[in-house]
C-alpha cells in the first residue's frame, strides 16, 4: 500500500467535497488511482477528458505511482 496525497480542483473538488486528502491505495498508476477514486466519490468525469500531474508536473496515466507523491487530476479547464 502507498500513501498518496491527492489534490482536487473545480468540479472534482466539489464532487469530492474536499480539496485535498491523504489516502492509502494499492494503485500502481494514476489511471488505477482515478478508477478507485471514482468509486469512492462518484466522479462523473471520464478519465479521457482529464490530465494528471505528479508532484506538480504533467505525467502519463500509466506512470509508476510511488509512495509519498502528490497527485492532481486536472479536469478540463478554460482560463481567460
Amino acid at each position, binding site marked *: 500500500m502507498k500513501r498518496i496525497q491527492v489534490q482536487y480542483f473545480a468540479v472534482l473538488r466539489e464532487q469530492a467535497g474536499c480539496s485535498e486528502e491523504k489516502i492509502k491505495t494499492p494503485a500502481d498508476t494514476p489511471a488505477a488511482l482515478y478508477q478507485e477514486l471514482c468509486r469512492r466519490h462518484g466522479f*462523473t468525469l471520464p478519465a479521457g477528458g482529464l490530465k494528471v500531474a505528479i508532484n506538480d508536473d504533467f505525467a502519463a496515466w500509466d506512470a509508476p505511482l510511488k509512495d509519498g507523491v502528490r497527485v492532481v487530476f486536472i479536469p478540463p*479547464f478554460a*482560463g*481567460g
Partner: protein
Amino acid sequence: MFRISSTALNPDALRRELLDSRAGGYVSFEGRVRNRNAGREVCLLEYEVYGELAEKEGARIIAEAQRKFAIFSAACAHRRGRLKIGDIAVWAGVTAEHRGAAFAACSYIIDETKKRVPIWKKEHYATGSSDWISQPAPGKTHKPVAKRKS
C-alpha cells in the same frame, strides 16, 4: 514573467514593467468578464488555479514566445478568485522592435495560456445556477464541464 494574481490586474502598471527604449512596438491583450456567454446572462465569475503547475506552465509559454518571435520582453498575468462583469481576467503584453512579432507573440501567449495553464472558471448566472466552463472546441462557445450533481 507569468503571474497569478489574487487582486485586480492593473494593465498600466504591468505595461510599465515591460517598457524599454529599444521597443518600437507594444501589443497588449486584456480579457474581461463578459455579461453574457453562450446566450446566458453572467453575474459573477470564479477562477480557481492549480498554482504550482500554472506558474511552471506559464513560465514555459513565455520562454517559448521569446524563442519563437523576435521580441524584447513578454509577460502574462491571470486572476484567481471572484470577478465581476468588466473585471480583467487575463492580461498579456509584448514589446518588440517591429509590430508583426509583437502581435504574433501576444496572440500565441494568450492561446497557449488558455490551452495549457490549469485555471478553471465557474460562471454564476442571473438565474442563480452556475457551471464550470471548459475550453470550447474550435469555433464553439464555452460549454459546461459536467452536469451539476443534483
